């Protein structure tokens, strides 16, 4: 009985230690940018949910497509209704790992590899990010590109020239330690 108890206590302690290495933000920022000769389109999402575990290097990010704010309401409408079909696919997700997650405190750049799901389609991506670890915060920042066609997002030929084939995605995630 004592043995079981001590194992249990140990387990709880380990669990606790691990839990302390988790950092979370509900107000991360992800924006995207499409450049074309006709027009530039930009949208920003300030409600990114992201969790990073420094112990394991796990990163999990969730965003609502409808939280992307556009300058023009027509663009936002087309984005949600025609392109990403956000009623059918309300969320985009990333689930991955920081590669070589040892001694992260001493690193300023990391590679993160994982599955990115947009519009119900999942693709492997590898992203470079700047990392900044402080006493109770972990900041991840970076830029990467995705191909619109990879995620089976159909752009009607009428506006083909208005929307870039490659979209630039910028992220800035300021995680705070989970207490």
């Amino acid at each position, binding site marked *: 009985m004592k043995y079981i108890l001590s194992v249990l206590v140990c387990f709880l302690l380990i669990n606790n230690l691990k839990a302390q290495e988790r950092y979370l933000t*509900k107000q991360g*920022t992800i924006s995207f940018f499409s450049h074309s000769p006709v027009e530039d389109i930009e949208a*920003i999402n*300030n*409600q990114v949910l992201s969790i990073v575990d420094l112990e394991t290097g796990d990163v999990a990010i969730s965003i*609502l497509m*409808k939280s992307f*704010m556009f300058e*023009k309401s027509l663009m*936002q409408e087309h984005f949600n209704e025609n392109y990403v079909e956000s009623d059918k696919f309300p969320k985009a997700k990333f689930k991955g790992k920081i590669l070589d997650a040892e001694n992260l405190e001493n690193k300023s750049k990391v590679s993160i590899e994982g599955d990115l799901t947009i519009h119900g389609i999942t693709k492997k991506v590898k992203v470079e990010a700047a990392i900044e670890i402080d006493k109770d915060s972990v900041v991840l920042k970076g830029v990467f590109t995705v191909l619109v066609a990879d995620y089976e997002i159909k752009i009607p030929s009428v506006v083909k020239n208005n929307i870039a084939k490659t979209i630039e995605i910028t992220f800035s995630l300021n995680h705070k330690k989970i207490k």
Partner: protein
Amino acid sequence: MKLTKRKKIGFALLVVGVLIIALALSQYYKPHIDVYNANPDIITNATDLLYEYENDEELANKKFLDKIIQVNGQISKVEASENNDIILTIKNQKDGFGTVICNLSTKENKKLINLKEGQIVSVKGICTGYLMDVILVRCNVVNN
């Protein structure tokens, strides 16, 4: 002066052309929904809204997505976003993990001074869905 038939047709085409361009431009520059002056589609409180989302997200999405929702509840956190807009977190009164996160529109920034933790507020905004929390955007504080 009598217009020839050709001139009449030309003139009509011109009018139609201008109308089409005007319509296209007004669509292109159509403003965002003015939450401030709009009547809410649904009035509820944070606890009930969260309950519906935690119970059946898909069903709740059908009911709330893109709707203007007025949520009553108690502020648990007042923060600033990266571009300095106010973010209000409204508590779930039952024991629950989730909250309602309201991103206030920039116009509301001057109200910051009147917003405090623990205060009961009524916030109106557009529902964009549920992650760990229900999220409302373009919000404005109805009474404070």
